[in-house]
């Protein structure tokens, strides 16, 4: 790994933890493992992101692929969050009931199919899965998913892999306001400031894949986005000042000496 800036201690209070379905995490950055060129880069990104939870996908076994991604994630000490495709096989393969539910409704935008999403979430919750659904940034849909028993909601900021950031901060803030389960921003992050904004708006965590795995320097971007998440979380807790139309002097006017020529 190239020499980076000196290590910055985790700025966020250790007692400030992310709780999902009875499990507790100190990291609020969830790493998606898609798009890494090799396992070494993934391992470096896990480390720099301080990830404790990583998504994985299930696909047909290809005997020519060397090494298992699970060994990399094990080594990094992270838990896996399998993506939907073949959820019953996921339960068998990983011994986990946790599931990221993704029901894509359109090939170009990869936007969720809201109607099918609710139906699938309901069925999986009934089957005993801990369901974390990828959803649009629709506050009503997010509330429906929460009401049927999803363990978290994962609204997009913008389409998967688009790097457009958070297109509708208003919707996201309403989702946060209504939510009684954790809100995890799940798509669209392009760089650290997007992750910071999500956290400033009150999201509980950020899930990030492409912005890290496809960055020129994945490990450095993992670190940057982690610091963005931490900064945003701190700022959210600290409470930002309201936006104003006009200036408000930070220096008191009282006691201003009369030094200029008087008229």
């Amino acid at each position, binding site marked *: 790994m190239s020499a980076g800036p000196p290590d910055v201690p985790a700025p966020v209070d250790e007692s400030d933890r992310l709780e999902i379905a009875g499990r507790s995490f100190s990291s609020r950055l969830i790493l998606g493992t898609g798009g890494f060129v090799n396992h070494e880069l993934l391992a470096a990104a896990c480390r720099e992101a301080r990830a404790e939870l990583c998504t994985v996908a299930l696909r047909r076994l290809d005997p020519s692929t060397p090494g298992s991604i699970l060994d990399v994630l094990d080594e990094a000490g992270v838990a896996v969050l399998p993506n939907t495709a073949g959820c019953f096989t996921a339960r068998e393969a*990983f011994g986990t009931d946790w599931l990221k539910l993704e029901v894509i409704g359109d090939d170009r935008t990869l936007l969720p199919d809201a109607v099918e999403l609710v139906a699938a979430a309901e069925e999986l919750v009934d089957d005993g899965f801990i369901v974390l659904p990828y959803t649009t940034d629709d506050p009503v849909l997010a509330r429906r998913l929460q009401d049927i028993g999803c363990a978290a909601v994962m609204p997009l900021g913008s389409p998967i892999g688009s790097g457009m950031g958070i297109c509708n901060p208003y919707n996201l803030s309403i989702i946060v306001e209504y939510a009684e389960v954790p809100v995890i921003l799940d798509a669209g992050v392009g760089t650290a400031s997007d992750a910071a904004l999500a956290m400033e708006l009150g999201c509980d965590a950020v899930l990030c894949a492409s912005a890290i795995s496809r960055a020129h320097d994945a490990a450095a971007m993992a670190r940057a986005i982690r610091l963005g998440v931490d900064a945003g979380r701190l700022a959210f807790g600290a409470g930002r000042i309201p936006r104003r139309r006009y200036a408000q002097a930070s220096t008191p006017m009282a006691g201003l000496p009369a030094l200029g020529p008087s008229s």
Partner: protein
Amino acid sequence: MNATVNGEARVLPAGATVASVLVLLDVAPDARGIAVAVDGEVVSRSRWDATALHDGSTVEVVTAIGGG
């Protein structure tokens, strides 16, 4: 007998089981993160040895990859 394994047509010896298909695919019996479904039903690891395949069986062997 004829079976379909991960989308490919295969001719398997009579009496082939899930375990023998995994040998064909070079999967060690203790390999992690592997799941098998036969004709759409998950076959748990403890039943790999005992689960016999039939002519026309469709076998899916899946594992974790980067993504999600």
